[in-house]
């Protein structure tokens, strides 16, 4: 699924590295536990989370993830946005909950990773 289509489906706004939006993504993983993200995410996946600190960006960096979608209207601080920009990671934010976002995107054809 194209990241631009994901953005529109969940009415998200782009917070960092807008250049990265022209990319197709096939899987998504939703979690606030970064250790679980590190344990299970093995391919280029959209990370959906309500956590907005430095460690989310660092985790994405370690796994070469290209995009993060923040849910529940959580806004990261400026430093975190700048770190994402530096690491070329697209950040988006939506007011919807993780469950709702997952349901919408699943309905549009996006799938979870295999565990």
């Amino acid at each position, binding site marked *: 699924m194209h990241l631009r289509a994901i953005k529109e489906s969940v009415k998200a706004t782009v917070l960092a590295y807008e250049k990265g939006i022209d990319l197709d993504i096939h899987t998504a993983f939703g979690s606030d*536990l970064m*250790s679980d993200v590190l*344990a299970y995410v093995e391919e280029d996946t959209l990370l959906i989370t309500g956590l907005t*600190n430095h460690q989310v960006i660092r985790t994405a960096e*370690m796994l070469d993830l290209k995009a993060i979608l923040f849910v529940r209207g959580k806004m990261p601080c400026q430093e975190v946005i700048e770190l994402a920009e530096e690491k070329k990671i697209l950040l988006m934010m939506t007011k919807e909950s993780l469950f709702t976002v997952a349901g919408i995107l699943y309905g549009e054809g996006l799938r979870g990773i295999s565990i």
Partner: protein
Amino acid sequence: MKKYSRSDENVAMKLHYDVLRDDFSRAGEASSKIKNMLRQLAIDANILRRIAIATYEAEINLVIHSYGGSIDVYIKSDCIEIYVEDSGPGIENVELAMTKGFSTATNIAREMGFGAGMGLPNMEKVSDEFIIESERDKGTNIKMVVNY
């Protein structure tokens, strides 16, 4: 069981990073530097990921649990060795600490998205060789080897 020791034979390059206790906003910087350095050496992307996960979990552990420590990376012709050492407080029961889901992390660690009891199991999972030794009041040493 193999004992923890550093092996200086055939090291092409060594990297060293100190990690401070409770330095939450900078946690991950050392791992980021290690990853970038190894990428410049054209190391395979899959190997790079495994090393990134191993060093990052180790770095987070040092920040959360230790009094401060260090990460050394030895780049060799057939593998990468990672040595993580700290000056305490040591792990009371290593076997328990290696169990998925077991955690003694603080609320601050949990707020960062860690402390789920997955750190050490993750490090072991991505390593071809994993050695952990810990002594109460002395510290913890971990060796991880990732073969090419």
